[in-house]
């Protein structure tokens, strides 16, 4: 049990001892040499920064204890995420403390990479660059980074200009270029607008997977909740068109399954029918004059009645909103599809209302894929001598194999990677100059116009790393032979450059801006005019065996383009739809599976004209019969093998199957571009699937109520609510009575709470075999319960955690009082008293108690992340959700300092804090004014397995289903 274990960080960070707090484990305790006013040992301090796990750029607060960051939370002031954080943001810590992180510069000698000093490593680069510059071959130098449009981007541009190198390339595999192009075509504006979901009455999404990855997942999920949740009284309608029942589709009131690549024609048909119904702007009538609805219905497999119904629903919406994304707008016909969607919005008069140009998304600044392709061609031709790759870019893994980046890179004289940890691309690098993790770095990032977040170091670097900016400055000056303060790159450090760049903006208010996490202002919507010529969108053109299956390669909620895959937390957090962990899979439609004779877990060979992949099958009843789906981004980090998974498969990402095909109109990569054939290999690779069944067997775990009924109950209250009677006197609560309320209607199943809890409570990672055998340790889990026809079920997501029962079955059976009832209404679990009889685990009807089957390890330096306020459990101990008791204690402590009692909002549990849809509410049930008390008495309130009379302290609110769902 190592806790408050500071000393290990000294091993981790060179300079830690000097800045360290004082509590050492075991023998020594180290005082500060010079007191650091920001850090009081034992007291958390918070630093605002910006999450860079994806281009959404959410605001983050980093909790620093004793000089080390132990938890990330959303920045409540930040306009994009307003305090919430997604699963990847929560797991960013594991990038910071990643066991595989480069301990310092590396230089390739012979086969492998060998450690080197910064001086030597940089010298290699400098000499090469200087030589090229001398020879006037500056164009042979290319700098590729992830999307950096802030100060760092500008600096990079300066740097490339100063060295006469090729223009700085920003590489984002999912750049939504089709949306840009379509905006250009329809509205004459090259931008990705802001979609005001929160204000729409009806949202029709063509594959836009905003719960998973689309544009700004936290931001749009929040907006969606506001437009859709019954709680806020809007109860808008959400219709989703996609061949696969994705997580987003499961959240739709109506999921329309269409043939892959036919979203465009569906949109046009809807537009035509809408206009026929006399709804919407007639000016667009001739645009769809040539659309044959019958033919569309037949090719897309969407019944004409459904199309008409969509048209009516959308047409009547005041306002509505049509959005496109995911596979729908990343096919070979992506732009046409998006144009059609734009027209829907234009005709319905949503432009300027729910479609807002002005606060444009940062995605609009990504270097076009066409230019990336050109760079790769140049590399192939051997025109590139030096290639610098920033962190976060892993083209070998993330880009379609058809692009041939790997081969091209082999022809580059000097590949310099600034990655923080090894990946497929660093395997090709000659020099590695490890960049600092974004939690250790200065910077700024503007996710959309008007919102600029500031990054600041939240702790001293865990590894010997230098920020990209500093490296560029140092190298640049060395190449140019100019010294500090002079020349085009005069700044001593990137930090200095950043502050200089910001001075005119903040005008001395730097500290305030830092504290707030950035600066934001409202951006007025720009007026745009929609124009359209006649359209006839066809289906996406797919290469490969005509009899094959359309390959749906979609970005994964957990790994995005693969950046997240090295985090064990994300690997062990189940994919909500399949509940699978620690492996990739190919989703095979049931019909095809039956034909091939494969069951879930049988390895299937997926072949396309560009490659083949062997993956275990996941048989899906919902997937379109002409499609197979494989999530992008699956890969393992070196330390995962064999610690958590037996062996690392050669490839798990469908990028290996994709060709060079692009969407002609936009030049964007075509993620929907090939047909694949399936073959049974006979091998088996059972998937670790955590949920035994999605059928709740009439046990009413996840309940729902019809919208009309819900409205009525909201007015009149619900009749016939009975209290379970008990032989014993009700418990009296002298002080507080903590309770939790979970709105099943709001939960979208994004799993953010699962990882947030894991980070907060030192929950260990168990690995594939253990997870598959029901030994995972998550204190909270998101269950998916399916109802209705197998091919078209309605999914309900039920967050399940310790119910903190008043009449808890787990307590009386414990022989040593390790499980008992606290006088504040919690189920206490005293780890150091637990003997491990596991009786409580059997007797808990919800099976939410977790047992430490082994002594689980936290590979260095991951143990540095452990929350000092929570005991790390030894082997043989039972553990479970504590409602974040450490936060409750802290909250009460602060209240006492302020000489008052705890109020709503003083205490947020980790799961509640991170939830993008505010589905979870914690509070004091004795306080009649508290939110949780209100929810507990809501007509939608119910408790799981109520008939057992356990009287849970966790209340659930029924999901509200729409009439037509």
């Amino acid at each position, binding site marked *: 049990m190592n806790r408050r274990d500071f000393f290990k960080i000294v091993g981790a960070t060179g300079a830690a001892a000097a800045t360290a707090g004082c509590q050492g484990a075991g023998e020594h305790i180290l005082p500060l040499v010079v007191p650091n006013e920001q850090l009081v040992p034992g007291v958390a301090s918070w630093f605002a920064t910006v999450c860079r796990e994806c281009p959404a750029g959410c605001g983050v607060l980093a909790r620093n204890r004793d000089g080390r960051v132990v938890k990330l939370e959303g920045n409540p002031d930040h306009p994009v995420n307003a305090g919430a954080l997604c699963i990847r943001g929560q797991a960013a810590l594991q990038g910071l403390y990643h066991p595989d992180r480069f301990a310092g510069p590396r230089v390739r000698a012979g086969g492998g990479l060998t450690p080197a000093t910064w001086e030597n490593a940089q010298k290699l680069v400098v000499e090469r660059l200087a030589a090229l510059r001398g020879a006037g071959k500056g164009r042979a130098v290319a700098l590729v980074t992830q999307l950096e449009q802030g100060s760092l981007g500008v600096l990079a541009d300066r740097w490339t200009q100063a060295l006469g190198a090729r223009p700085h390339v920003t590489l984002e595999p999912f750049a939504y270029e089709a949306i840009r192009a379509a905006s250009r075509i329809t509205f004459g504006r090259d931008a990705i607008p802001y979609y005001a979901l929160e204000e729409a009455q009806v949202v029709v999404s063509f594959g836009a997977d905003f719960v998973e990855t689309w544009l700004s997942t936290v931001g749009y999920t929040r907006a969606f909740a506001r437009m859709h949740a019954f709680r806020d009284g809007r109860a808008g309608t959400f219709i989703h068109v996609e061949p696969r029942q994705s997580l987003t589709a499961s959240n739709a009131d109506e999921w329309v399954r269409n043939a892959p690549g036919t979203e465009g024609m569906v949109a046009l048909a809807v537009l035509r029918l809408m206009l026929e119904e006399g709804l919407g702007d007639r000016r667009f009538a001739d645009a769809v004059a040539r659309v044959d609805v019958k033919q569309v219905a037949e090719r897309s497999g969407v019944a004409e009645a459904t199309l008409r119904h969509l048209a009516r629903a959308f047409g009547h919406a005041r306002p509505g909103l049509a959005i496109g994304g995911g596979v729908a707008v990343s096919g070979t016909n992506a732009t046409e599809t998006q144009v059609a969607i734009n027209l829907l919005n234009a005709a319905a008069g949503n432009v300027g209302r729910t479609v807002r140009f002005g606060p444009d998304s940062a995605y609009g600044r990504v270097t076009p894929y066409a230019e990336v392709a050109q760079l790769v061609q140049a590399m192939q031709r051997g025109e590139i001598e030096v290639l610098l790759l920033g962190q976060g870019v892993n083209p070998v893994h993330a880009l379609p194999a058809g692009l041939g980046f790997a081969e091209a890179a082999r022809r580059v004289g000097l590949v310099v990677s600034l990655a923080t940890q090894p990946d497929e691309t660093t395997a090709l690098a000659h020099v590695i100059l490890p960049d600092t993790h974004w939690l250790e770095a200065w910077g700024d990032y503007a996710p959309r116009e008007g919102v600029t977040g500031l990054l600041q170091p939240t702790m001293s670097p865990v590894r010997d790393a230098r920020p990209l900016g500093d490296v560029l400055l140092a190298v640049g000056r060395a190449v140019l032979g100019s010294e500090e303060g002079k020349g085009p790159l005069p700044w001593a450090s990137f930090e200095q450059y950043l502050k200089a760049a910001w001075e005119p903006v903040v005008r001395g208010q730097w500290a305030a801006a830092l504290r707030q996490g950035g600066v934001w202002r409202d951006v007025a919507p720009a007026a745009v005019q929609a124009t359209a010529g006649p359209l006839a969108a066809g289906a996406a053109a797919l290469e490969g065996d005509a009899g094959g299956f359309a390959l749906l390669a979609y970005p994964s909620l957990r790994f995005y383009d693969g950046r997240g895959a090295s985090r064990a937390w994300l690997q062990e957090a189940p994919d909500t739809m399949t509940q699978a962990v620690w492996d990739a899979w190919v989703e095979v439609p049931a019909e095809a599976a039956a034909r091939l004779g494969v069951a879930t877990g049988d390895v299937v060979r997926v072949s396309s004209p560009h490659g083949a992949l062997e993956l275990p099958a996941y048989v899906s009843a919902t997937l379109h019969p002409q499609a197979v789906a494989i999530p992008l981004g699956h890969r393992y980090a070196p330390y995962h093998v064999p610690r958590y998974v037996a062996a690392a498969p050669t490839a798990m990402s469908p990028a290996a199957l994709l060709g060079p095909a692009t969407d002609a109109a936009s030049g964007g990569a075509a993620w929907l571009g090939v047909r694949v054939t399936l073959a049974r290999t006979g091998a088996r690779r059972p998937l670790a699937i955590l949920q035994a069944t999605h059928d709740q067997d009439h046990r009413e775990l996840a309940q729902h109520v019809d919208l009309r009924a819900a409205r009525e109950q909201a007015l009149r209250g619900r009749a016939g609510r009975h209290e379970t009677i008990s032989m014993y006197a009700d418990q009296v609560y002298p002080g507080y009575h903590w309770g939790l309320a979970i709105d099943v209607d709001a939960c979208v199943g994004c799993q953010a709470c699962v990882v947030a809890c894991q980070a907060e409570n030192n929950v260990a990672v168990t690995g594939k075999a253990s997870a598959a055998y029901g030994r995972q340790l998550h204190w909270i889990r998101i269950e998916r319960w399916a109802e209705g026809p197998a091919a078209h079920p309605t999914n309900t997501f039920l967050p399940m955690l310790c119910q903190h029962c008043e009449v808890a079955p787990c307590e009386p059976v414990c022989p040593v009082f390790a499980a008992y009832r606290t006088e504040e209404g919690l189920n206490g679990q005293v780890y150091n008293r637990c003997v491990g009889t596991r009786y409580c685990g059997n007797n808990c*009807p919800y099976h939410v108690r977790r047992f430490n089957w082994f002594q689980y390890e936290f590979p260095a330096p991951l143990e540095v992340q452990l929350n000092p306020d929570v005991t790390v459990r030894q082997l043989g101990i039972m553990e479970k959700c504590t409602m974040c008791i450490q936060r409750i204690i802290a909250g009460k402590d602060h209240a006492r300092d302020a000489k008052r009692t705890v109020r709503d909002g003083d205490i947020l549990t980790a799961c509640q804090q991170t939830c993008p849809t505010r589905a979870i509410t914690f509070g004091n049930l004795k306080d009649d004014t508290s939110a949780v008390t209100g929810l507990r008495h809501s007509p939608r309130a119910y408790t799981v397995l109520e008939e057992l009379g356990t009287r849970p302290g966790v209340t659930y609110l029924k999901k509200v289903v729409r009439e037509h769902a």
Partner: protein
Amino acid sequence: MSDQPTGTPTFADVNRDVLRTLEPPGHRYFAWMSVVALILAGGILFWTGQVWWGIGMAGKRVPQMWALYITTFVFWIGIGHAGTLISAVLYLFRARWRTSIYRAAEAMTIFAVLTAGLFPLIHAGRMWFAYFLLPYPNQRYLWPNFRSPLVWDVFAISTYLSISTVFFIVGLVPDIAALRDASTGWRRRIYALLALGWEGSDNQWRHYRRAYGLFAALATPLVLSVHSVVSWDFAMALVPGWHSTLFAPFFVDGAIFSGFAMVAVLVLPMRHFFGLHAYIRDKHLDAMSKLILVTSLVLTYFYLSEIFTALYSGDHFEKASLFWKVTRTYAWALWLMYFCNCIAPLIFFVKKARTHPVVIYVVSILVLIGMWFERFNIIVPSLAHGFYPYTWGIFVPSPTDTGIVIGSFAWFFLLFLGFIKLMPSLSIVEVKETLPPPMRDTRHGAHH
């Protein structure tokens, strides 16, 4: 005693025959001994591994937080019961046929309880903290939770072990005295010590007899309580398939059932190898067979009523659990159990079978298997299909828990093998009691 064929053994014969069983054993005996010891060593090795690496070494999981260990624990406790039943209950009923087998049965009880007692330790995640379950004043002011059936177990089993041991030793004293007077050298000195200077004087006998009767009177309710308490480990829990008031009598009957099977398994070889046919006669076998048959029938009744309640209650969870057990993954274990416990013993309706050693032996083995699986079927499948569909799951035994369970059998037989060579496995005194006391005057010939 009209059914005695050849001449009734005299008191002297009894001493001779019983002492014969204690003669230095042959190599066959040692061969058996070493085999058993080897298996035991394996079990211990597995246990060490489990303590070192964690309970995960055993095949347990969510939802089967309990599995083979508790199964075997209950099994052994059950075995113990026959011993006490024979020595105490039948004593009170003055069933004379008990005398020739009760010593072995009692020894079996103690060894079975000793074996069972290991399992809670083996089972615990942190067995080095098992002393938390004991009520002793400590600096933490902490006490066990007396509401927990597991603490009841601690009390029930330690009491059971203590009382059975006392009972056993008291029963031995006069016999050891007999050994003392029949042996010489170091053996004599040891036996002299253990005999506490027993002489069989009238004064000793009168208190002895009274005390013995009282022990029997105490042991009888105890034996019933112990297995009831064990059954409450399950009945007190919420789990569908456990939460039943039927369990206490159900378990007690099952215990006696399996216990007698074990007695047969132990006594028949003894009879064969030591040639004790004069003492362990067909009427003994017959009586045992009859008891096995009766308890089997009662058990069948319990099985039926268990199913009936599940169906009749209309409780969705109970029904679901039942149907799952009967039809799914572990159905084979269930049907095997039904065969061994309900069908196999029916052969004892045939008179010949009741006295045929081989038949009895085979049936007994089947019964033991059946009863082990009864506990398995109560624990593993019930947990596999509980209240919460998300966590439904299948338990797969691992080398560790299998090894430890097998080791426990080795441990038991090791103890028993040791016993039969060191202590009179037949009660000299009580056997003599059943014989007609020597009379010179034949007018008193007919014994009453």
